[in-house]
């Protein structure tokens, strides 16, 4: 037997009867006794207090808007003026009483400031996304929450272009937007309806990604309970989904207007929320728009061809590493 194999065999058998305590080995019983003595075992009542303390949040002073019988909710415009215009027309045709934007006005697309007058003219009720927080705060990064270097490379290109092409007045307006809104969706003023919380990433973090395959029902229920709401709507991750909780509450990610939903379909997504007799109905709308015009403008602005390819193909080419395994498995790249 070679020396190396002998050494390997010795290492494999090195811990017989011993525990590893930091860098030392000690008799197993010594570790177990020390571990059992460490920490605290609370009484049942104390445990309940500890759990409540973790979950309890101060009451949210955000005013409740509405009631409205039907609203449109979108997020992630990403400077896609063409999709924004199509969405506003589509929502008006569906008879909505209010239009909400969940933030991230800029990113992959051209001429970010061109969306501003459309939002103002239509009376869109907006909240801040991480983009608005970063642009208004003069930060040097979008705080999208990516961890992969390639994702961050393209996120930087997007953000730097957007920051260069937004006026101080537009950035100041972004800085004055609220971080969240609340809206009552009800059939009429006599009906209690449902109070929905509107956020960018999640109720607890502006850049939290809530994907369908990684957002447990128990987590969504806990967030609704903490926020004392009948459901919430978010965006940020780029992929839409709707979930009904065991108690009937609705939680949805409304997707984004700015780029397709990574399924080979060039249409973009937003939500129509309608009051019903027993709750709200959330419909994810697939919206066609003039993507050729957008692609032309992006190329004229010399934006990365990867971004244009997504608009023209319906498949994401960047910012993919953040996708959970299931969503990534359905993706082309």
């Amino acid at each position, binding site marked *: 037997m070679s020396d*190396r194999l002998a050494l*390997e065999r010795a*290492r*494999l*058998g*090195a*811990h017989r009867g*011993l*525990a*590893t*305590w*930091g*860098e*030392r080995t*000690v008799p*197993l019983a*010594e*570790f*177990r006794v*020390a*571990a*059992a*003595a*460490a*920490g*605290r*075992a*609370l009484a049942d009542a104390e*445990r*309940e207090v*500890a*759990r409540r*303390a*973790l*979950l309890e*949040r101060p009451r949210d002073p955000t005013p409740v808007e509405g009631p409205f019988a039907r609203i449109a909710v979108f997020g992630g415009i990403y400077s896609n003026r063409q999709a924004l215009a199509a969405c506003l027309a589509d929502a008006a045709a569906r008879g909505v009483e209010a239009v909400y934007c969940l933030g991230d006005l800029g990113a992959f697309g051209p001429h970010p400031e061109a969306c501003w007058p459309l939002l103002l003219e239509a009376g869109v009720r907006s909240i801040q996304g991480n983009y608005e927080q970063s642009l208004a705060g003069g930060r040097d990064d979008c*705080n*999208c*929450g990516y*961890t992969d270097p390639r994702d*961050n490379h393209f996120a930087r290109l997007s953000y730097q272009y957007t920051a260069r092409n937004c006026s101080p007045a537009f950035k100041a307006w972004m800085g004055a937007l609220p971080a969240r809104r609340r809206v009552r969706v009800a059939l009429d003023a006599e009906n209690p309806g449902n109070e929905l919380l509107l956020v960018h990433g999640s109720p*607890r*973090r*502006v*850049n939290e990604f809530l994907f369908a*395959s*990684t*957002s*447990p029902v*128990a*987590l969504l229920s*806990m*967030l609704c309970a903490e926020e004392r709401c009948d459901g919430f709507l978010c965006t940020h991750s780029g992929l839409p989904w709707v979930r009904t909780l065991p108690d009937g509450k609705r939680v949805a990610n409304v997707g984004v207007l700015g780029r397709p939903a990574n399924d080979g379909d060039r249409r973009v997504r937003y939500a129509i929320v309608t009051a019903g007799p027993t709750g709200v109905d959330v419909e994810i709308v697939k919206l066609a728009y003039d993507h050729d015009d957008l692609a032309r403008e992006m190329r004229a602005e010399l934006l990365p061809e990867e971004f244009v390819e997504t608009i023209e193909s319906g498949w994401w080419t960047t910012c993919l*590493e953040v996708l*959970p*395994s*299931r*969503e*990534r*498995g359905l993706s082309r790249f």
Partner: protein
Amino acid sequence: MQRAANSDRPAAPDRAAVPPALSPATSARPPSVPAPTSVPAPSSVPSVRLADLETLWFQVGGTLCNLACTHCFVSCSPTNHTHELMTLAEVVPFLDEGAALGVKEYYFTGGEPFLNPEMEAILALVTRSYGPATVLTNGLLLDPERCRRLRAIAEEGDYALDIRVSLDGPDAESNDAVRGPGAFARATAGIANLAAVGLNPVVTATEVDDGNGTPEGKERFFALLRALGIAKPRLKLLPLFRIGAEAERAGAYESWQRLAAGDEGDLGFDHLQCNSGRMVTGQGVWVCPILVNEPAARMGPRLADALGPAALSHPACWTCHAYGVSCRT
């Protein structure tokens, strides 16, 4: 690397009164090991609140492993019973307690989790009823049959199943120098078996070789994975913790490598994983996945006992802060 705080929320003031786990005042050390003289005074040791219990880890493979890697920060081996395998019945009460606390993701590690005869049953239960699950494996036990069963679990669950396979080099020579003879051949066969059933693992590599983290080093891993049938290779790099076997291989921490009050700077400490996660072993709840071989890092028998702040008194805490480490994928 992004190091955003784990929550936008302010700290809840009523939880600050709980004494931090692992504080020098309460830490137990083996009698044979004198307390390092460089431990900062208790008053200067910073601590981290738990903002949300987002990530729940299970040392479901104990410290038992079919390898004995020279860099293992918990010194796992075929004979290391410091922590034993966890049964499904042991895991379930923590899943229920965690779900009620709003856990977002579940991680299963060891040791080698697939030495646990109930590992697949645990993954099936979690992805069906609790949330997304990630299992961290050395890949040696990923035979074609097991991979087919894992594929079924991944398809049938409501939530995502992710598999992380550890490699420490893109070839047998560099990998096996750390992980043992034959490890590369068996792990890469396991990765190929996953690819054959359409599962795309995240390969985790440590920076045991300085080149692994460079663009060229990563490209070598990507090329290997493509050759194994992975069209969209995924790679996570982790720095080394100079504890356990790694302390013998590369030397222990220097005395200055400890956190003190003020070290947080503008970044703060809320980016640390102890701000949003806990680790469950067969012996109770530990503050994080790194410190399961430190009895003083045990916080109590149940999750509710472990919701208080964690003291950043261990030198490994310095690595987490300095390198922005998260054990999450």
